[in-house]
C-alpha cells in the first residue's frame, strides 16, 4: 500500500484484501464483518471468513478477553482461507488493538477509533501508556478517527440519545472501510432499512453513521488512497453467501426431500451447533419437526425414536453432547436404524473453548462407544460443502441402516463463502424402501418377518415401520439372534453378529470413488487432510506448486471406513504428513492401518491453520 496521499477518482486495483474488524463484544463487530462479507460476495469477489469471538455473552467490557473479531479475505481469484495476516485492522478500542495488532502485516493499515483510547479503556486493556503515542504502532499506516464522537454528531439532528447513537459506531467503521475499498453501499443501506425497519430511530442512526463513515473517508485526506478488489472470475452460476451451519441445515432439509422422508431433529442447545436447530425450526413446511429436548441424551433419543417410526432422525451437537449421546448411538448400532449425529467440533476437553474451532473429536467419533460398535464417520471440508456432506451422511445412514457421525467444526459452522448453487434436480435420490411384507418363511412354510434377515449386498437389515400390518417386531439393546432378531446370548451368535456389524460398515467403502490425488502424483510428499484444514492445505499446496515444488494432497471425506485404495495410494510417497487441528488422531489411524511412517502436523490452539504453517510443514517434509 502506498504512503502517498493523493486524491484520485479511480481506485487502485489490488487482487486481494484481508480486513479484520476488532472491537468489544458489544461493538457489533460480527455484524460489521458479516455486512462487509455479504456486500463483497454479491459484488462477485471470492471470499472466506473467520469470525473469532469470546464464549461469554458479554465479557467484561473493554478487556482483551472481551474482544470480538471478524476477519475476511476478499479476492479477484479463487481463494479458500480467510488469510494469514490482515492488510487492514480496524481497532475499535485499546483491547482490540492489544489483542490483534500482532496479526496485522508489517506496514498494514491500522484504523483506530481514537475516542475509545481514554485512560479507563487503556487501563482495562492493560496499557500503562497509550500505544498511540509510545511507538507501539510505528511501522503501520495509521488512520486515526474519532469514530464515536463523529457518529454522535451525525445522529444528533435525529434526536437520538447520545448513548444510543454511540452504538451505531460500527456502521461508521463499515462506511469508512466500504469507501476505502470501493464496496457497493446501496445494499447495506437497503439492509439497514429492512433489518431495523420497525425501529425507526435505530435505522436512522445506523444509516446516519454509515453515511458519515463514507463521507469521512471521501472528504478526509487522512484516509488517502482508494482501492478496489475486482470481482473474481468464478465459474458461471447462481451464487449465494453461505455459512457452514446454514449449508448443513439446508443439506438436512434436502436429505429429507431426496429420501422422501420427513426429518425429525432432536437437539439441545450447544455452541457452536445451535444455529442448526434454529435454522431447521424455520422449515416446518418441508415436513421438518424439531424437538428442543431436555438434554443431549433425550435429543438423540427423540431422533432414534423418530427413526424407528420411519423418519430421518437427526441430532445436532458438539463434542460434550456426543459424549452424552454415546450410549444411545451404541443402541442405534445394535438395533441398526438410520440415525444422523452431527458434531460441530469445538475446543476441548470438557467445556474447553466453546466458540473456538478444533478437530479433536475424530477419535470420539470413530471409537467413542462401549463394545465393538463401528459406525461410519463423514467430514465436511468447507462451509458450502456442509450441504453435500449432510446428504452423503444421510445416504449412508439410510442405505446401511446405521448411525452416522458427521463432523463439522466451529470454523466451518460460522465461516462463510460464496456457494454456486447446485441444480436441485441433479441431487441424488437417496430414498430406500420400507419393508412392506414378510421377508421369510418359518419352519412350517408360513410367511414371517425376520427383522435381522439382511440384504446380501449391503448387509443392511430391513426397515419395517410401525403401522405396517404383519411385521410387528421388537428390537432392543440385548444381543440379537442373526435373522430372527430374538434375544440371544450364545457365544457363536454374538461372534457372528459382531462380524456382521463390522462387515456391514467396512462394506460402505465400496460406494466411494477412487482416492483423488490433487497436485503431483510423482511428488515425494503427500499431504493427507480431513475437515476444515482443506482451506489452508489448498492454499499452501497451490503456493508450493506455483513456486515450482511438487506436492500431492489427499483430502478425506470418509474417515470411517477409510477408502479401500488409500493404503496403496499413500505407500507410493516417501513422506506422508497429516495436518490436523488435534494431536495426530487421523495420523495415528493411518499409521496403524497401513504401517506407514505418516507424521502429524498438529495445531490445538482453538484456531485454524494458517497457510504459512502448512506450507512450512510441507517444506520441512520435502527432502
Amino acid at each position, binding site marked *: 500500500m502506498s504512503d502517498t496521499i493523493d486524491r484520485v477518482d479511480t481506485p487502485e486495483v489490488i487482487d486481494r484484501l484481508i480486513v479484520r474488524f476488532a472491537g468489544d463484544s458489544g461493538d457489533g463487530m460480527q455484524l460489521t464483518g458479516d455486512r462487509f462479507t*455479504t456486500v463483497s460476495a*454479491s*459484488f*462477485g469477489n471470492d471470499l472466506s471468513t473467520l469470525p473469532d469471538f469470546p464464549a461469554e455473552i458479554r465479557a467484561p467490557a473493554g478487556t482483551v478477553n472481551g474482544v470480538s473479531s471478524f476477519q475476511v479475505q476478499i479476492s*479477484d481469484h479463487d481463494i479458500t482461507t480467510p488469510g494469514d495476516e490482515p492488510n487492514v485492522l480496524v481497532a475499535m478500542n485499546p483491547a482490540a488493538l492489544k489483542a490483534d495488532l500482532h496479526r496485522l502485516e508489517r506496514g498494514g493499515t491500522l484504523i483506530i477509533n481514537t475516542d475509545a483510547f481514554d485512560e479507563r479503556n487503556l487501563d482495562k486493556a492493560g496499557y500503562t501508556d497509550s500505544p498511540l503515542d509510545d511507538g507501539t504502532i510505528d511501522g503501520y499506516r495509521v488512520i486515526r478517527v474519532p469514530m464515536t464522537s463523529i457518529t454522535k454528531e451525525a445522529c444528533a439532528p435525529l434526536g437520538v440519545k447520545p448513548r444510543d447513537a454511540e452504538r451505531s459506531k460500527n456502521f461508521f467503521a463499515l462506511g469508512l472501510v466500504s469507501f476505502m475499498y470501493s464496496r457497493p453501499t446501496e445494499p447495506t443501506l437497503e439492509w439497514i432499512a429492512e433489518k431495523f425497519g420497525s425501529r425507526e430511530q435505530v435505522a436512522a442512526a445506523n444509516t446516519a453513521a454509515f453515511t458519515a463513515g463514507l463521507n469521512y473517508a471521501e472528504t478526509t485526506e487522512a484516509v488517502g488512497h482508494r482501492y478496489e478488489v*475486482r*470481482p*473474481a472470475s468464478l465459474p*458461471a*452460476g*447462481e*451464487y*449465494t*453467501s453461505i455459512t457452514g451451519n446454514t449449508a448443513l441445515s439446508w443439506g438436512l*432439509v*434436502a436429505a429429507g426431500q431426496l429420501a422422501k422422508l420427513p426429518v*425429525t431433529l*432432536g437437539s439441545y442447545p450447544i455452541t457452536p451447533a445451535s444455529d442448526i436447530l434454529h435454522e431447521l425450526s424455520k*422449515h*416446518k*413446511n*418441508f415436513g421438518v*419437526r424439531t*424437538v428442543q*429436548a*431436555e438434554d443431549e*441424551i*433425550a*435429543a438423540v*433419543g*427423540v*431422533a*432414534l*425414536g*423418530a427413526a*424407528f*417410526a*420411519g*423418519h430421518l*432422525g437427526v441430532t445436532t451437537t458438539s463434542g460434550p453432547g456426543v459424549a452424552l449421546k454415546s*450410549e*444411545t448411538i451404541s*443402541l442405534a448400532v445394535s*438395533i441398526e436404524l438410520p440415525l444422523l449425529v452431527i458434531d460441530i467440533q469445538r475446543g476441548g476437553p470438557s467445556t474447553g473453548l466453546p466458540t473456538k474451532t478444533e478437530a479433536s473429536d475424530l477419535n470420539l467419533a470413530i471409537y467413542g462407544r462401549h463394545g465393538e460398535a463401528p459406525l461410519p464417520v463423514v467430514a465436511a471440508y468447507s462451509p458450502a460443502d456442509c450441504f453435500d456432506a449432510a446428504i452423503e451422511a444421510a445416504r449412508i445412514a439410510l442405505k446401511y441402516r446405521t448411525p452416522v457421525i458427521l463432523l463439522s467444526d466451529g470454523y466451518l459452522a460460522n465461516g462463510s463463502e460464496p456457494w454456486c*448453487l447446485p441444480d*436441485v434436480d441433479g*441431487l441424488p435420490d437417496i430414498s430406500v424402501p420400507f419393508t412392506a411384507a414378510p421377508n421369510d418363511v418359518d419352519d412350517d412354510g408360513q410367511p414371517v418377518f425376520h427383522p435381522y434377515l439382511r440384504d446380501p449386498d449391503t448387509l443392511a437389515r430391513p426397515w419395517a*415401520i*410401525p*403401522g*405396517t*400390518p404383519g*411385521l*410387528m*417386531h*421388537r*428390537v*432392543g*439393546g440385548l444381543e440379537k439372534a442373526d435373522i430372527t432378531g430374538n*434375544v440371544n446370548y450364545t457365544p457363536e451368535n454374538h461372534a457372528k453378529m459382531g462380524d456382521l456389524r463390522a462387515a456391514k460398515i467396512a462394506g460402505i467403502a465400496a460406494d466411494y470413488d477412487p482416492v483423488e490425488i490433487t497436485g503431483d502424483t510423482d511428488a515425494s510428499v503427500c499431504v493427507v487432510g480431513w475437515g476444515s484444514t482443506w482451506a489452508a492445505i489448498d492454499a499452501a499446496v497451490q503456493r508450493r506448486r506455483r513456486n515450482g515444488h511438487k506436492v500431492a494432497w489427499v483430502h478425506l471425506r470418509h474417515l470411517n471406513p477409510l477408502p479401500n485404495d488409500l493404503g496403496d495410494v499413500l505407500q507410493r510417497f516417501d513422506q506422508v504428513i497429516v495436518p490436523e487441528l488435534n494431536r495426530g488422531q487421523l495420523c495415528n489411524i493411518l499409521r496403524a492401518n497401513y504401517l506407514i511412517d505418516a507424521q502429524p502436523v498438529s495445531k490445538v490452539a482453538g484456531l485454524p491453520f494458517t497457510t504459512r504453517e502448512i506450507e512450512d510443514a510441507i517444506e520441512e517434509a520435502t527432502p
Partner: protein
Amino acid sequence: MTDTGVTLTTKKDWTSDQEVRWCPGCGDYGILQAVQQLMPDLGVAPENTVFISGIGCSSRFPYYMNTYGMHSIHGRAPAIATGVATARPDLDVWVITGDGDGLSIGGNHLIHALRRNVNLTILMFNNRIYGLTKGQYSPTSAVGKVTKSTPFGSIDPPFNPLSVALGAEASFVARTHDLDRQHMMDIFHQAHDHRGAAFVEIYQNCNVFNDGQFNNITKRDARDEMMINLVHGEPITFGADGRRGVIMGSDGTLQLVDVADVGLERILVHDRHVDSPALAFALARLNDDDASPTPFGVFRQVQRAEYTSEVDAQVVAASQRYGAPDLADLLRSNGTWTVTPGAESGG
C-alpha cells in the same frame, strides 16, 4: 397402514411368541396379563401400537407383546417414545418403566415427557427395589431400608412417584396394583384413552428381592382398611361400609375421620378434573407415613394441549403459510447473484 378405527382382536393377537422370563411369582406377570387382556377392548390394531421400555425387569415387557416395540436404554424410554410419538401421532405409544428406570436414571426424561404432555401411556412398575441388578435400594425405597448396598439402612429419603408426576404437570395420574387385574385393566384403559401423557404407578411385588412390600395394603384382608378407592364425584371414604373418610382440616392437611363423627357432608368429594392439582397432591401423599391408607384410582385427569398434536399443527400451519416445499427456493432464500459465462461478475 391400517385405519385406526375399531379393530377386532383377541388376547392371542397381542401375545408374542417369546417365552416370558420373569422370576416365578413376580408381579410383572399379572401386569402383562392385564395389558394383554385389555388390548382387544381398546379397538386398536397391534401394528399401530408401540411399546417402548428402558432397562430393568419390567422393561422386558415389550418382548412379550406382539406389537412394534423397543427395549431401549436405562431411563431413556420416555425420550425415545417422545420421538416415536412426535414423528407418528397416529400411533398408540406405551412406555414401560420402573422405579429405578423412571425416577432415578431417567427422572429427567419422565418429568419432561409429562411436562410436554406427549401422548404416551406410561406404566411405572414400582417395586421399591432394583431387581435386575439383584437387590439394591431404589429411589422409592423407604429410609432405613436394608439392602445389599445399604447394609446399615438407606439414608435416602424416597420419591413419591405420584407427587413427582403431579409436580411435573402430568395431565393424567393414577395408581393401581398388581393383585387386581380388573382394577389394572380399568385404569390402563382410561390411561390409554386420555389424550396426553398418562402416568400410572403400579404397586408391584418383587418376590425375590423385596417380597411383600405392599402386603399390608394390597392383600385381600388388608384392602378394606388400607385402600381408598377414588371415584370421581364420590365422597372419599374407605373401611367396611365406608365407615371412614377423608376431610381437609383447618390447617389445609388431609385428615382421616370416622364419617359418623363429622357427617358425610364434610367428607371430601373426589374431583379428578379440577384445575388445581392441590387435592390430588395431598391424596398422593396420604400414605407417606406408611400407616395411613393408600388411595388408588385416578387422582387427576385434565385436558391440556397435547405435544404431538401441537407439533403437527405447526407443520400444517407452515405448509399452509409457505406452500409446498421448494428446495431450489430455499437455497435462494438468503439472496443470490449470478456469474455469467465469460463475464467477471454479475450484479
